[in-house]
């Protein structure tokens, strides 16, 4: 009746191809691990109370922000990255899967470098106007702190946030729409994915100004929250709940400051 065709056994090429996913995942883990280690070490930024914002110091801060973002955001990019690997290795560019996947990750992290630049400028201004407890420390002004919480809370409810989160949570559709061949295509796709991810998370990252830029509890907490928002089912309600909590917290800070 039925006869089994044995021609489908795994050849050496296919076995090697299957390792692509492992290689890319290990590389991503290594990058995130190094970034986390560097962040734990304090990113080499001298912790003086009143630093002078020389170009060198600004660059060091930029690197600190970027490394921190790499440590926080790489885990959230993993599902998309693995899907990218699975699709690439089957297609005509299968022999370049690892290289293209790392370029994709590079594009994603470049988008976060853009965020880091803006964050550094903000940090400079906050410290210049003496609104924080010192370098990398939480915002001292309850009005500013409350305003940031309210802003982040409101953002959780906006259509932009929802649109970006939908993109982030539908990697298959995202890949079908935006995938292009070649190295430039991989980098572009990474930048785009990073862009949507930024649209989702930039406001949450602003919370670091409230909790202290190098506060490890806030860093780890935010990274876990972002991962959950992106991957757990039914996160829609969770995003709104977080938004409400932030709004309540911000309102409390603002009202107590004004009374």
């Amino acid at each position: 009746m039925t006869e089994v065709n044995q021609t489908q056994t795994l050849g050496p090429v296919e076995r090697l191809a299957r390792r692509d996913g492992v290689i890319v995942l290990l590389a991503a883990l290594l990058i995130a691990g190094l970034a986390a280690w560097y962040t734990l070490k304090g990113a080499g930024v001298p912790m003086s109370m009143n630093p002078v914002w020389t170009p060198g110091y600004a660059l060091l801060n930029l690197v600190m922000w970027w490394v921190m973002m790499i440590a926080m955001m790489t885990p959230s990019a993993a599902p998309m990255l693995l899907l990218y690997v699975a699709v690439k290795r089957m297609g005509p560019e299968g022999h370049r899967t690892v290289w293209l996947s790392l370029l994709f990750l590079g594009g994603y992290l470049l988008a976060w470098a853009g965020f880091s630049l803006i964050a550094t400028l903000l940090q400079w201004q906050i410290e210049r106007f003496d609104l924080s407890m010192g370098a990398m420390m939480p915002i001292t002004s309850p009005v500013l702190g409350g305003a940031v919480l309210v802003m982040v809370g409101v953002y959780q409810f906006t259509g932009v946030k929802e649109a970006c989160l939908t993109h982030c949570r539908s990697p298959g559709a995202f890949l079908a729409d935006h995938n292009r061949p070649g190295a430039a295509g991989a980098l572009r796709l990474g930048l785009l994915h990073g862009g949507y991810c930024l649209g989702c998370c930039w406001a949450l990252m602003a919370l670091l100004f409230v909790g202290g830029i190098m506060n490890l509890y806030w860093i780890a907490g935010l990274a876990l929250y972002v991962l959950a928002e992106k991957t757990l089912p039914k996160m829609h309600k969770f995003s709104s709940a977080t938004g409400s909590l932030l709004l309540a917290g911000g309102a409390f800070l603002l009202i107590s400051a004004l009374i």
Partner: protein
Amino acid sequence: MKQWSIQGEEIANCNCNFGCPCQFGVLPSDGTCEAAVFFRIDKGNYGDVQLGGLLAAGVYKWPGPIHEGAGEMQLIIDDKASAEQRAALEAIMTGKDTVEMATMWFIFSAMCPTKHDTIVSPISVEMNAEDRIGKGTVPGVVEVNAEPIPNIMSGAPHRVGIRLPNGFEFGFAEMAKGSTKTSGGAIELLKNSGTHAHFASLHLTGEGRVGA
């Protein structure tokens, strides 16, 4: 990349609610995707190998939505196919010689790291898309039955279709109600009963769906 083209009809049944949430970018009804699909190729070629008149089927099972991968699949190819035709169908239906993500076969295959050995067997397919009645059988392996979706008030046949102008599988499909019974194959499907089914005309090449 070898040039190929396939024109034909398909009948598919999965474990989701009528309409298949996938078509709307929504997660599967119970979180998993389990499906059986039968293909009747009316006209087609893979390079110089002619494929018209052949039948094929596929059984698929994912622990989550398709795009999360980790699935398993098993193809079944007509025992009337010659060795060359068999190899050609197997290549096409595992996404080879295809632009990335251009066909559902590419995507199914990319999302199924476990590919069970292809079965070569007699296959029979009867399809009437107009009446939404169909049956696909691989004796001792898998059987799919489809009938019209009943109107919730009267039970009379309820006709509804899905148009996907940019779809990678079909441009239009008739919705139906289907069930699948698996027996001797490598994959067991237990949830497909009174669930989504569809009938669609296919026109696919390595570049994707013609007309998309």
